[in-house]
């Protein structure tokens, strides 16, 4: 055990700082990319801070993109003849000395940068450009917060989003519906079921409980195909139902978790209530549930995270775009025709991550305690 101010203590702190840097850096990278303009996401060397570059092109001070540095000297010229007559272009000194039918606009030194007006290309036609020394390009930090609304609009497919009202808010609502109904189902059903296993004595209970535990061993792929058939038979493919309905019928892990907790509540409490003529349901509802808040909260939190993060379930059961959850919409956006732009993808990812991070920060104690207790049941 390292004590403060010893050498080993300092090593421990140094190691922790190094490790946490490695764990945090991806997040920083995520946020940094999401706030960059597209060309700075694919420029080298890597930068973390988004900037805006300004330069004078044709006498106007405009925002530019830094395209590349010119390797040798030359000149920007206006061609007099040939297919490019009337246009400007760059020729190297070598080409110039061999004779080019063109008027020199201005000479260019090696190492100068080719810059293009940033918003020029979107206006159609050729954007304004020039080749100028690096010193003439000024820059300042600028976060592109507008990437976020743009990314969220792109998530639903832009124009189409307006038409069918399918967009980020639809996906968010679906995710919330699945998570909330799932959380309610998980807490309610498992508490009821666990009560039956923990606080009642009946024939076959222990065998049934052993069977319940055994089902935890079954990997999901074994269930995947027939479950699809089950939901098809119920006419639920293409709806959110397969994602939350099963939570209302218990799950082995949560039953186990809650049963363990319920068993720690003194039996005398129940006995006293029974003598007073309380029904089992009343005992459960009035005595056990209020005393079990910690375990119920843990189950609720875990299920929320699971439902929010789930990918395979939505991938299997959701067909129509208006039923997509945020996770599926994000994947679907990434794999859309014609590729995707990194700054938007990172912005959309950040938005998907945000709710779970917030939830975690709000309830971190419960989380950590929950994981520590559930994971230690060796």
């Amino acid at each position, binding site marked *: 055990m390292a*004590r403060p101010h010893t050498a080993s203590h300092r090593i421990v702190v140094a190691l922790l700082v190094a490790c946490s840097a490695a764990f945090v850096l991806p997040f920083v990278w995520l946020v940094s990319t999401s706030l960059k303009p597209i060309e700075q996401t694919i420029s080298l060397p890597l930068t973390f801070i988004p900037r805006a570059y300004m330069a004078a092109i044709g006498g106007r001070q405009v925002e530019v993109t830094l395209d590349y540095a010119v390797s040798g000297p030359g000149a920007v010229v206006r061609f007099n003849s040939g297919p490019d007559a009337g246009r400007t272009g760059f020729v190297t000194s070598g080409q110039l000395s061999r004779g080019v039918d063109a008027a020199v606009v201005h000479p260019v030194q090696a190492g100068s940068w080719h810059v293009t007006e940033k918003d020029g290309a979107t206006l159609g036609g050729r954007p304004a450009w020039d080749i100028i020394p690096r010193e003439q390009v000024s820059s300042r930090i600028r976060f592109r917060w507008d990437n976020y609304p743009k990314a969220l609009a792109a998530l639903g497919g832009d124009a189409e989003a307006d038409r069918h009202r399918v967009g980020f808010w639809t996906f968010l609502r679906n995710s919330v519906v699945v998570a909330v109904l799932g959380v309610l189902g998980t807490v309610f059903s498992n508490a009821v079921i666990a009560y039956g296993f923990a606080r009642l004595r009946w024939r076959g209970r222990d065998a049934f409980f052993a069977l319940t535990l055994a089902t935890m061993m079954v990997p999901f792929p074994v269930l995947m195909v027939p479950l699809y058939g089950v939901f098809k038979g119920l006419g639920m493919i293409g709806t959110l139902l397969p994602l939350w309905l099963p939570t209302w019928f*218990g799950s082995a892990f949560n039953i186990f978790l809650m049963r363990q907790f319920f068993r720690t509540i003194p039996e005398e409490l129940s006995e006293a209530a029974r003598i007073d003529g309380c029904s089992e349901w009343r005992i459960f509802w009035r005595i056990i549930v209020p005393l079990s808040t910690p375990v119920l909260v843990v189950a609720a939190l875990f299920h929320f995270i699971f439902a929010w993060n789930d990918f395979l379930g939505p991938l299997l059961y959701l067909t129509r775009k208006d039923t997509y959850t945020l996770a599926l919409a994000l994947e679907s956006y990434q794999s859309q025709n014609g590729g995707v732009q990194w700054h938007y993808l990172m912005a959309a990812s950040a938005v998907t991550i945000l709710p779970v991070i917030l939830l975690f920060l709000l309830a971190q104690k419960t989380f950590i305690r929950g994981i520590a207790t559930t994971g230690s049941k060796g």
Partner: protein
Amino acid sequence: MTRSDRKQLRAGLAFTSLWIVGLFAFTAYPVVASLYYSFCDYSILKSPVWCGLENYRQLAHDGLFWKSLRNTLFYAGLSVPLGTLVALGLAMLLNCEIRGRSFFRLLFFMPSIVPVVASAMLWLWIFNGEYGLMNGFLNPILGLFGLHGPAWLADPAWSKPALVIMSLWGTGNAMVIYLAGLQNVPRELYEAAEIDGASSWQRFRHVTLPTIAPVVAFNAIMALIGAMQLFAQAYIMSEAANGNGNASDGNPERSTLFYSIYLFSTAFQDIRMGYASAMAYILFLVTAALTWFAARLSRGRSGEAL
């Protein structure tokens, strides 16, 4: 059976009735149906036709099946031990008396709750061969030796290690569990060991390890089962990094064709549900066998150490 017995039974069944339905509909029936389908030529669009052991016979000499199994074992073989080491290492660092401990714990844990789709997107970008963060760090160092960072997810030799690295980022969960385990080690044991003049390695070997070994073993088994079912990250990232349309085929060069990916594409792309069910059952057996083996191993170990 007495009247009160019957009453108790009725109450028990009433309280567990939801689970009886759930167990049957969402677990028991699928497990049995899956077994039946595994002996059938079945696409969900046409009715199943019994074909005996044909699916299993075909699996035995399906090169892709074996390749997917090898890939999965390779991934599990790397990610489970490394993940355990990293989680245990971090937990031991955090078990020291330092300031800001809960802050560090928070940082290490946070990645493990990031939605897998979002973390897949993030790491896809980090592993981008040219503009990604990973090579952005590696290239200046490797450049001293005239080397260049690999293309990671687009390079068959590096795609699986890339996924392993990504999995290490999410070990916070296990770390929290190990930390709790470490904190359960009675302080007196350490003090006693110290008085006996034990070195810090000896203290770790003879005090810490035996106490947390069962927890480590249990979580390693869980991680192993999880690794055997690796799906979402690989599914999203291999397709995106190699841009090959609809073929979820473990690109590049099938180096990320993991068991669950092959199973999924067999079932829901080639709609060979029978064949996929046979694969699922083999996964079932392999998982069960591994679990049993690991449980035995860990029991033996911890028994010996205690």
